[in-house]
């Protein structure tokens, strides 16, 4: 941003700082090659397998990314950082991962996460396809690096969960994690349970009421969930409101039958569990 140069000598420093401190200059493409060539062997990858393990990263990348984005909202919503925290991640595709020796470099909003290639399963065998850097597109301000060992445990678990154990953020992240878990469960429920009206039903229902009263199936954004809702608020919204029909709708769907005398008596003689009993004489 262009700014007029201040005449006051005391303001010169601030002017130059604002114009130059965070500036970036494009780097020639050849420079990385030169650096790579001159890196000593101790710094470069020693075994050929290290780079060849990155063969089928697409699934892993996507899943880890979604876990990490949950973490980033946890960081930003509480306002505190996760420096030095132990990070546990359960990956959404069903592979549970725990970054045991994760090194968190830099603080603030998570933008890029590097997961190193030393992933092992419970038996200590090296697991392939975990060596990948995962960009998180939420914000582009800082970089966080998880390096060293990534241990996978409880493979094939199918939970949507993400844990961040931190001295400062433990409570907040647990709440957010619960909210996102519940939101995803609710989403699945809604998808499966929402009644799909048949053509006959549509014909029976008056057009005005049906458009006004039937809300569209909700698409619950997990990020919004993290930021706004608590788990308790979510329960009634989703299951009750969306699946059951309103009284007006039921009126429109079918004419109300008057109960006969015998039906009324039978209803009265049912206990709370719906079991018929004989009235005492």
């Amino acid at each position, binding site marked *: 941003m*262009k700014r007029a140069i201040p005449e006051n000598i005391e303001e010169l*420093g601030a002017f130059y700082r604002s114009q*130059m401190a965070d500036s970036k200059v494009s780097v020639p493409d050849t420079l990385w090659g030169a*650096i790579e060539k001159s890196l000593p062997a101790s710094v470069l990858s020693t075994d050929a397998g290290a780079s060849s393990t990155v063969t089928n990263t697409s699934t892993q990348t996507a899943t880890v990314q979604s876990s990490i984005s949950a973490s980033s909202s946890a960081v930003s919503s509480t306002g505190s950082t996760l420096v030095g925290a132990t990070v546990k991640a359960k990956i959404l595709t069903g592979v549970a991962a725990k970054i045991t020796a994760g090194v968190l470099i830099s603080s603030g909003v998570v933008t*890029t996460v590097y997961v190193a290639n030393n992933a092992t399963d419970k038996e200590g065998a090296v697991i392939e396809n975990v060596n990948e850097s995962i960009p998180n597109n939420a914000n582009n301000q800082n*970089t966080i*690096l998880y*390096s060293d060992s990534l241990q996978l445990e409880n493979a094939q678990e199918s939970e949507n969960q993400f844990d961040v154990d931190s001295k400062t953020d433990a409570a907040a992240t647990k709440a957010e994690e619960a909210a996102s878990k519940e939101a995803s469960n609710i989403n699945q429920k809604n998808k499966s349970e929402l009644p799909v009206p048949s053509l006959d039903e549509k014909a029976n229902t008056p057009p005005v009421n049906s458009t006004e009263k039937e809300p569209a199936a909700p698409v619950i954004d997990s990020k919004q969930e993290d930021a706004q809702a608590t788990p308790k608020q979510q329960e009634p919204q989703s299951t009750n409101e969306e699946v059951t029909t309103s009284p007006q709708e039921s009126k429109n769907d079918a004419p109300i039958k008057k109960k006969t005398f015998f039906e009324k008596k039978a209803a009265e003689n049912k206990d709370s569990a719906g079991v018929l009993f004989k009235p005492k004489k």
Partner: protein
Amino acid sequence: MKHDRKCQYKLYNFLAPKLLATCLRYTPSRAEAEDVLQESFIKIFAHLDTFRLDSKIDTWSIRIMLNILNNKFKWTYKYANRHDEIETAENITEVSIKNEGLEYDDLLKILHTLPELHRNVFNLFEIEGYTHKEIGEMFEISESTSRVYLYRAKILLQQTHKKLNY
């Protein structure tokens, strides 16, 4: 990370533009800046395990780079005398700026009109945020000398601005 080339490349992409911009404020030419940048990355990758979590990685990397610059250009001003006569903008290198507004490159040109010690003190204090104590230790000068050179740098910059009608 230390042995992971892909991660190293990601880190390089993240840091290199900022490090190069910083380096250009201290080196007289771009070629030299790129040399220093290359050397810096070798050191950064080699010492990444010593990085502590109490600072940002870019700040840490800039410190490494400044040490390299210091070694390379022998920034020792032990014999700099703060009572030296102050340079005037008339004596410093000509700078031509064609743009109507001052862009990054123009400000860089103006900064490079300053004598080396003035420029380095100004950069370190005003842009990098070093203290006079830290600058004094780096250049083997006293804190008060560092203050004097900062003030002189500002005067010279002001003179240059006036000369350029800014």
